[in-house]
């Protein structure tokens, strides 16, 4: 597992270790401050971390999907989406079909989750299904399955748990400190007249850490997450052999200003594009979880083949710094030169238009939400909520009374 997560990505591993060290240091210093014993604090920090890890490991995906208000669908609910996921599952070489979820939201976004590759899930928003054509959808699903295949989900879950522990510790420590200062401040200062200087230094360090640690951890978290995005883009190009599909999907995602309602800071790196992006935001800074969309598009468009080495070449060409690429050597050597394919032919299976895609998606959502469908003879279709009482309904278009 580690070999694959960190395959030649020593940097990712170093960043994770740095985050773990940060947790250890903050635990130790807070212990020193509160109990005069560093080990005690360290143990508390590790216990909190262990508990969060257990919760995250066993419940993480269901918590995440629940927070995103994602609804699981089957093959019959949305055949086109199921089909695309199946294609990409085969192309990526995953052994088991991931579960598919739809989020009822007009924003365009998607994410993957699941601690191991045999128990993974991908979630897409309904807006995404409506706005993207088959090639674009394939690119996005390829990107998400690459996150699963590259074990990014596990790495990012571990990182976000480390981040979460640091944030929780600092938050509670600051509350306790404040409370102590209000209630027992005078007593401690009178009982411990001597040793004030040492106490003061520890206090200063603890305060500093409490403010800086969450910020530092967040920056590390973002740095790890940005790296994984490039690799997932490269893998998606490899699976689809059509990088233009993902590029044009990213264009649409970037142009949409609709914000995802159910996203929050901790889950932001899981999505294909940053859900908090605003119009005109300078995307390329330390605190962004994703590389700027425009850059990702330019790299994909500059690709002359579909192999990871070609992605690497395009990346270097865009950055023009020469020197190092972004894709680990193992990924490059694993695949030889792979040619691009043409865009999906318009003939054969007809590509559904936006109206059809919208109806297809809302059909799936009505189904998973257990609405009953009634077709009136006049062509009007009525959908009744699961809580509908009464045994007849009047068609508002033609006035017929239909028994349910």
């Amino acid at each position, binding site marked *: 597992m580690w070999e694959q997560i960190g395959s030649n990505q020593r940097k990712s591993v170093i960043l994770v270790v740095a985050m773990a060290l940060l947790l250890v240091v903050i635990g130790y210093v807070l212990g020193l401050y509160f109990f005069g014993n560093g080990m005690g604090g360290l143990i508390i920090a590790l216990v909190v971390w262990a508990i969060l890890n257990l919760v995250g490991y066993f419940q993480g995906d269901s918590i995440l999907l629940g927070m995103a208000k994602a609804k699981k669908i089957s093959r019959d609910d949305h055949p086109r989406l199921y089909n695309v996921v199946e294609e990409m599952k085969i192309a990526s070489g995953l052994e088991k079909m991931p579960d598919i979820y739809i989020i009822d939201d*007009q924003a365009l976004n998607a994410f993957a989750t699941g601690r191991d590759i045999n128990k993974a899930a991908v979630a897409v928003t309904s807006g995404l299904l*409506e706005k993207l054509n088959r090639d674009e959808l394939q690119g996005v699903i390829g990107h998400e399955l690459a996150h699963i295949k590259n074990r990014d989900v596990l790495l990012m879950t571990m990182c976000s748990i480390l981040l979460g522990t640091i944030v929780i510790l600092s938050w509670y420590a600051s509350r306790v400190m404040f409370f102590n200062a209000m209630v027992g401040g005078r007593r401690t200062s009178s009982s411990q007249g001597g040793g004030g200087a040492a106490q003061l230094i520890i206090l200063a360090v603890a305060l500093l850490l409490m403010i800086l640690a969450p910020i530092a951890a967040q920056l590390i978290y973002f740095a790890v997450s940005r790296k994984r995005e490039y690799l997932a883009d490269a893998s998606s190009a490899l699976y689809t052999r059509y990088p233009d599909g993902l590029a044009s999907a990213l264009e649409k995602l970037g142009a949409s200003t609709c914000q995802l309602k159910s996203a929050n800071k901790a889950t932001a790196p899981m999505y294909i594009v940053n859900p908090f992006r605003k119009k005109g935001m300078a995307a390329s800074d330390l605190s962004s979880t994703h590389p700027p969309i425009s850059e990702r598009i330019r790299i994909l468009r500059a690709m002359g083949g579909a192999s990871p080495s070609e992605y690497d070449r395009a990346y270097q060409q865009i950055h023009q710094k020469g020197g190092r690429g972004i894709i680990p050597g193992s990924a490059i050597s694993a695949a030889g030169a792979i040619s691009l394919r043409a865009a999906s032919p318009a003939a054969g299976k007809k590509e559904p238009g*936006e*109206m059809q895609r*919208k*109806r297809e998606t*809302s059909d799936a959502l*009505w189904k998973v939400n257990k*609405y009953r469908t009634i077709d009136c003879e006049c*062509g*009007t*279709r*009525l*959908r*009744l*909520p699961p*809580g*509908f009482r009464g045994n007849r*309904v*009047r*068609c*508002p*278009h*033609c*006035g017929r009374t239909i028994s349910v």
Partner: protein
Amino acid sequence: MICPVCKSDMIVVEYKDIELDHCLDCGGVWFDAGELALMLQSLEIAGHGLCLAEIIKFPEAISSEKKRRCPICGHRMKKTILGKEPGTLIDVCDRGDGLWFDGGELAQLLKHLVKSPGKEQNEPQKIINFLGEVFHAQE
């Protein structure tokens, strides 16, 4: 979706591939932003997508009617007048989630349409005409 007036679960009426949420208790109709854009798009090729944004900019109507909350985002909606002579008092979500037509307003609008079908071909009139077509049997 929950009716913003009587809080009961609304049914969905799909007509010509456009979905409208309709409350059987109070007769109100919710026209979702996405569906509105699709409807205008299917009627003409150019100039779509701007309509809801335009309606949001309409002047606020003075009315004693109770403020309603958007069934999607839960924020208070703005009252405004759609169409001319006499016009229909509607609620619009200023976050752009959609439009709400009260049951009574809809009935009035339909009666008016039967007497003098709207001839103007601007976008508000198209919305009114479409509603009139869907809720043909509703008087």
